[in-house]
């Protein structure tokens, strides 16, 4: 394999592994903050037990999110030095701002929260978890702004052989990045809600701590429903932004080859990139693709043949990842509605409880599929229409990248297994009993 493919694989492995932990940090920190706010406002000890139980899982998850994040910050330099030099003026500053305004907040206050139960007052402790939530969600804003700039580069001029910042406000107000940020945050919150629902369902199925977990459901179910509705609406808008700014990606997502108005959407599709056409094309909904792209069947949707062949993204993985994500989103909507409707008698709906348990891994897969669409669909560009991925890689021997890739797979594999095993162990153990304040 060449160094470009190895570097891409290494990035994929490390970023996906990092993103196993990040969404739960984003989503569960918000739910923890809500639970602890309820505790401080009502004085009801059950909410404190909730914060402690979910907090334990949160912290086990949090550590790996932190340590695998450092890898990514350094990887732009180790494997993508040409890229770093070319766009560092803009991209690097966004990463530095992320560290200064978000990581410090998140990492400092998480310790106050973890170590401070008996050290600081109730209100300061509550403040700490809100700062963790704020810090981690702000950090998502900056890193997605950085990724959004790669998707839709704005606010720069070409000077001194590199992209230089010319308009900082254009970079942080980049509409593409803002859509992406909203989509990422909402999907992480959805994952957090479904995680709480899933673990609660596991206990409810076994009649363990029923009162406790029923009350968790009553917080998580409405939360998840609100988020899923917002995500659906926002996802539609996000699709339109992609159609507008990255027509080649949009065409690949739908295996759309010829530029037309009144473009249909096919339920059954299988693309043939070499032929520049579809092998299978069935069950079309007339005008649907045009409607999705621009709210009207008259919208002209660009086909891939409009673009030079060397600018086509890999169609099959982009298309499959997108379909997978959308199909799962449909399932999440159904589960969120059902959980909300039956939130007070969830225990009698055994099928729903079982479905919620089995659903725990699916939001993770959906989020990764979404990122696969965003990143594979952007190829062959590392910065859309500005720099090709093949030109971005470091002048390092392929063997170095290969060795480190193997090391990452082994180390991350072991740590991932241990971490998920610990999460499972503490999730199954359940909350502390009401009489026992420490565990």
């Amino acid at each position, binding site marked *: 394999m060449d160094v470009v493919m190895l570097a891409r694989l290494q990035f994929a492995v490390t970023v996906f592994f990092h993103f196993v932990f990040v969404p739960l940090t984003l989503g569960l920190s918000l739910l923890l903050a809500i639970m602890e706010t309820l505790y401080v406002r009502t004085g009801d000890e059950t909410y404190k037990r909730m914060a402690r139980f979910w907090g334990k899982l949160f*912290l*086990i998850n*949090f*550590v790996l999110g*932190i*340590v*695998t994040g*450092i*890898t990514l*910050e*350094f990887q*732009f*330099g*180790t494997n993508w*030095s*040409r890229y*770093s030099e070319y*766009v*560092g*003026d*803009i*991209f*690097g*500053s966004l*990463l*530095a*701002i*992320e*560290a*200064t*305004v978000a*990581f*410090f907040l998140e*990492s*400092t*206050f998480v*310790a*106050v929260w*973890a*170590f*401070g139960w008996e*050290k600081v007052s109730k209100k300061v402790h509550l403040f700490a978890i809100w700062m963790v939530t704020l810090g981690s969600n702000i950090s998502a804003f900056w890193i997605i702004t950085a990724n959004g700039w790669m998707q839709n580069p704005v606010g720069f001029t070409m000077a001194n052989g*590199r992209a*230089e*910042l*010319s308009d*900082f406000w254009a970079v942080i107000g980049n509409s593409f990045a803002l859509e992406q940020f909203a989509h990422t945050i909402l999907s992480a919150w959805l994952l957090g809600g479904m995680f709480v629902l899933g673990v609660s369902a596991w206990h409810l199925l076994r009649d363990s701590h029923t009162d406790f977990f029923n009350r968790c459901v009553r917080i998580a179910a409405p939360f998840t429903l609100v988020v899923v509705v917002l995500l659906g609406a926002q996802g539609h808008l996000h699709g339109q932004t992609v159609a507008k700014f990255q027509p080649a990606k949009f065409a690949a997502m739908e295996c759309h080859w010829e530029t037309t108005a009144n473009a249909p959407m096919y339920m059954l599709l299988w693309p043939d990139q070499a032929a520049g056409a579809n092998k299978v094309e069935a069950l079309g909904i007339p005008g649907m693709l045009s409607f999705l792209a621009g709210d009207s069947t008259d919208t002209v949707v660009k086909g891939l043949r409009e673009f030079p062949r060397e600018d086509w993204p890999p169609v099959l993985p982009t298309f499959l990842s997108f379909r997978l994500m959308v199909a799962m989103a449909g399932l999440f909507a159904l589960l969120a509605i059902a959980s909300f409707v039956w939130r007070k008698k969830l225990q009698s709906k055994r099928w729903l409880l079982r479905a919620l348990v089995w659903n725990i891994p699916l939001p993770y897969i959906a989020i990764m599929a979404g990122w696969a669409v965003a990143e594979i669909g952007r190829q062959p560009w590392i910065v859309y229409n500005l720099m090709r991925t093949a030109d971005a890689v*470091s*002048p*390092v021997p392929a063997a*170095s990248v290969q060795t*480190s890739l193997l*090391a990452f797979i082994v*180390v991350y594999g072991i*740590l991932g297994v*241990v971490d998920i095993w*610990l999460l499972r*162990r*503490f999730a199954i153990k359940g909350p502390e009993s009401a009489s026992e304040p*420490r565990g």
Partner: protein
Amino acid sequence: MDMETLWFVLWGLLWAIYFILDGFDLGLGILRPFIARSEEDLHVIHHATGPFWDGNEVWLITAGGVTFAAFPKVYAVMFSALYAPLLLLLFALIFRAVSMEFRDKVDSPCWRKVWDIGLFAGSFVPALLLGVAFANLFIGIPIDNNGVYHGNLLKLLNPYGLAGGIVFVVLFMQHGALWLAIRADGELRERAVSAASSLWMLSLAGLLVFLWLTSLYTSLYDNYMTHPQLLIFPILAVTALLIQRPLLASGVYAGSWACSALLIFCVTFFGLAGMYPGMLISSLNPAWTITAFNGASSPLTLSIMLGVALCALPFVFIYQIWVYKTFADTPPHDGGAGY
């Protein structure tokens, strides 16, 4: 002062703060197996570092991020040139963090043993590699005019690089022992104090040898010839070390730790002041050196980043100091809280 020089100083400051803060928890991670005699001791050590390591490590992320933002070319070439040591550093830091947080999650001696080893290796390797890496930056590394590195891991392990590694390990261990002397009580504190006193001899010897080796291997002293006022850094370093000893002996542990912090600060700036304006000195041809000027970002980015740093960092200082104060008392001897 021009913007590039200002950022060079800020860049050095971030590294120095990182070394001072993570230095004590890395150092304690190395000392831990030698100094703790019981589970209880280990809990005290855990509480002496547990609430801080994560916030401390963010200084590394910020130093890395600022290198990327303010000196993209330096970031690109440094990180791809130091490929192997950097990845080793990353893996070590990953193991350290995970070891600290996983260790007490399962009640089994074998489980704890594994993470004890992880914590030791995860603390020793970063201390050593950071020293090796910085010493090599002081000498210069074989990069050509395209920033392509023509060396390997073994070339970094030259005598001066190794000396830098050993100095970092010793300074961090001493720094960690002094931190524990502040935070522990009873017998554990006595052991920490006696470790700090033995390490003091090593630090003094290491520092003097390193200053001497610097004149043999590097051209850092050229800047000191032209700007003798810079000699304040090595002089202060030695002075701080000399004051540290009596303070330790009279039980002023916090003062002694502060001296150790000043020492680490001065050692960092001793090297950086000698390198300036070079950031990646090319050992192949001085003309290929990447400096704070030819490696910097655009003036607009540098000013925006300066604004961000001036607005955000004071808050960081305030809340991190508050956290240090909140968790300042002697840690509990039982298990209890943690990640």
